[in-house]
C-alpha cells in the first residue's frame, strides 16, 4: 500500500485541516526551518521505520507531517533540531548525511544513537528527542490513519474519524 499526498489530504481533512490551512502552515514555518531538508530527512526515517508493505511517498510526509503541525511552531522547530542532530550523528557514525545512507545503515545509525531504547521525551536527551519528534511523530501519523490501521485489522484507528459503521462490522466485513 502506498501513502501519497492524497492520503495526507484525506487524513488532514478528517481532523479539520483544509488545503488552505496546510498552505498557510507551510508558509508560516519558522525562518530557520528548511522545509525541503526536513521533508527529505523525515522521508528517509519513514522508509526505515514503516513496514515494507507501506510505500511512503515524499509528498505524504511533506503534506501530512508538516501540514498537521500547522501553527505548532515549537514542535516544528524541535523536530527540525532533532533531525539535525540525527544527521550530525549519521555524518560522524557513517560519514554521510542521514538521507544519503542506505536503509540498513540508516537503521544502524538510529540504533547506534540509542533511539530504539530511548524514552520519548520532548525535553530529554538527544536520543529521547529523536524518538519523540522523529520516530514517534512518524509512527503516530501511520497508526492514526486507515492505512496503518489496516495493517493490524483496525481500519478506523483512534485519531481517525472513520464513522460509525466500522465498529459494528465483523472480521469478515
Amino acid at each position, binding site marked *: 500500500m502506498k501513502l501519497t499526498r492524497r492520503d495526507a489530504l484525506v487524513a488532514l481533512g478528517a481532523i479539520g485541516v483544509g488545503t488552505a490551512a496546510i498552505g498557510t502552515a507551510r508558509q508560516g514555518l519558522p525562518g530557520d526551518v528548511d522545509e525541503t531538508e526536513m521533508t527529505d530527512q523525515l522521508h528517509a526515517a519513514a522508509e526505515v521505520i514503516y513496514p515494507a508493505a507501506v510505500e511512503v511517498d515524499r509528498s505524504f510526509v511533506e503534506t501530512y507531517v508538516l501540514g498537521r503541525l500547522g501553527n505548532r511552531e515549537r514542535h516544528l522547530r524541535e523536530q527540525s533540531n532533532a533531525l539535525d542532530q540525527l544527521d550530525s550523528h549519521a555524518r560522524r557514525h557513517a560519514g554521510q548525511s542521514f538521507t544519503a545512507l542506505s536503509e540498513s545503515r540508516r537503521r544502524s545509525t538510529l540504533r547506534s544513537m540509542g533511539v530504539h531504547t530511548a524514552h520519548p521525551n520532548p525535553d530529554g536527551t538527544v536520543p529521547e528527542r529523536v524518538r519523540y519528534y522523529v520516530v514517534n511523530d512518524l509512527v503516530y501519523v501511520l497508526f492514526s490513519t486507515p492505512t496503518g490501521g489496516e495493517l493490524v485489522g483496525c481500519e478506523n484507528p483512534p485519531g481517525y474519524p472513520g464513522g460509525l459503521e466500522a465498529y459494528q462490522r*465483523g472480521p469478515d466485513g
Partner: protein
Amino acid sequence: MIRARTPEVCVIGSGPAGALVAYSLAERGHDVVVLEAGKRFDPGESGRRMEQRLRRERWTALYEMGGERDAFTVSGASAYALNERRVKGVGGSTLHWGGTVPRMHPEDFEMDSRHGVADDWPIGYDELEPYYLQAEHELGAAGAPNPFGGSRSGPFPMEPHPLSYSDRLFQEAWEELGVTLHHLPRAINSASYDGRSRCQAFGTCSPVCPSGARYDATVHVRKAESDGVTVLDRAPVTRLEHDDTGERVTAAVYVHDDEERSVEADLFVVACGAVETPRLLLLSASEQHPDGLANASGLVGRRFIEHAAIRVRGRLDEPTRQHLIGFGTSQTQQFYGYDEGPRGSILITPLNTAGTSPTEAALQDGPAITSLLGGRRPDEMTWGDELVDQVTAETDGFLAVSAGTDLLPDPENRVSLDRSRTDDLGNPVPDLSFGIDEHAIGTLERAEELLTELVAATGAEAIETSHEPENAFFANHMLGTTRMGEDPATSVVDPDLRTHDIENLYVSGGSVFVTGGPANPTLTIAALALRLADHLDGRLS
C-alpha cells in the same frame, strides 16, 4: 476591591451542575453571573489535545491541571490522583468525561427503607423522573429503555448507538447464562442533534471529542451566554461573605488578574464538585460560622463517595474488532439490584477498547508483555515489519468487561482542609481521606467472579483481572460531601438543595447525593440542576 454588577443569581462553577442552572434561569429571563476558576479552552486545539492523548502524554497536561493552583493532599488509605480526575475550565470535568448517562434506579433513593443500609434520599425517583427526561434531552442522550431500570415518561431523544461486533459476541454467549445485554445510554450523538454533529468515531471521547458529538457543558454555557449570562473565567472564588445576621450570603469573593473582586447577588449556587464545594464552604468560616459556612451539622466534607471498579479481560483466537470506536455501546444492569448478589450493586459494561490501541502499541512507550515474550527488552522498540507483528499482538483478539460498584457513604471518608499546605492564593488545600471498606471489597469480589464467568462464556482464554478488588480503580465520580436531607442535624442541604443554615445559598452537583449507587452520576447531577433551576425560578418570581 472591585465589585461587579449585582445579578439575581451568582453561580460558582461552570460544569453541568452550574451551566444548566444558569442556562435554565437565563432562558426564563433571570440575570445570572457565572464564576469559573479555570480558563476557556479553545475547541480549535482539540486535534492537538487528541494527539497528546494518543501519544500518552501526561493526562493532567491536557487541560492544564496541576501546580500550586490545584494542590491537594491525600491522608487516607486510598491513593487518589485528584487532578487526573477533574478539570478546572469552562465546562468543568465534562471536558474530559466519557458521556455515559444511565439513570439511577428507584432503589438508590431508598437504600435504608429497602435494604437497611445508608440513608434514603429526601426525594424519590418518581419526583426526579421528569427532570431525568429533560436532562436526557438537554445533554442529547442516545439510548433505549432497558428492562432493569425505573419507569420512563418519554423516549430518549436519539436512537441508541448500535451494538458493536464484540457486544454481539457477548450477547450470544450470555444468552445461555440468562444474562441480558442492552444498549448503553450515551450523551454522544448517534445523529445530528442540537446543532452538533453525529459521532465521527475519532475514538478518543475521553478526554477529547474533536467532532463535538459528545456533550460537554460548554454547550449550555454558550446557550446561557446567548441569553445574557456573564461567564467569567479564571475567576476562582476564595470565600463567601455573609451579612451581620450570618443568615444570608452577600458576596462571592474571587481573584481575577491578581486582584480580589466580588459579586453580590440575591441568590448563590455553589457548583464546584464534591471536593471544591465543601472546600469553599470550609474556607468561608466566620465568627458566626466558625466551622465553615452551612456546616452547623459538622457534615460539610463528610461521606465522600466514589465508584470503585474492576476490569476483567480475556483473549480469543480470532479478531474481536476493538478500538474502532472510543466508547462502550452496551451494558447490563441485571446485577444492579442491591439484593441480586450477596451484597452490593454492580453495573457491568463490555468495552470496545480492550487491549492496547494501535497507536499506543506502536509507540511502545510502556511495559509490553509481548516484548518480553519476544525476547526484547521491554523498552526496546521495533521498526518495520516487526512493528506490525508487535502491534497486532498487543491489539488483536481481546475482550474485556468492567464493573462499577457502589461505595456506601461513610462519615470517615471525607474532604477537609489541610492547613499545613496552601495553594497559589494562600488558601489551605483540600485533603482527601477515604478508603474502600469491607462492604465494597465484598461487592468487588462478587463482581470479579461475575466478570470472569461472563468473559469465559465467550470461549476466551488467558482471563485476567486488570484491577483486583483490593486494588480497584476509581471511576472519577466524586459525590456526597454536602448531602441532602430533611433534618439539619444529619444533612447540609434541604430537598430544594438550599443549605439548612443560609437562606440564600444553594448547592448543585454530585456533592448533594445521599448515596451513589453504581451508575455514572452526571445525568442525575443534570436532572438535579434542572430541578433546582425550577425552584429558583419560583423563588425569584
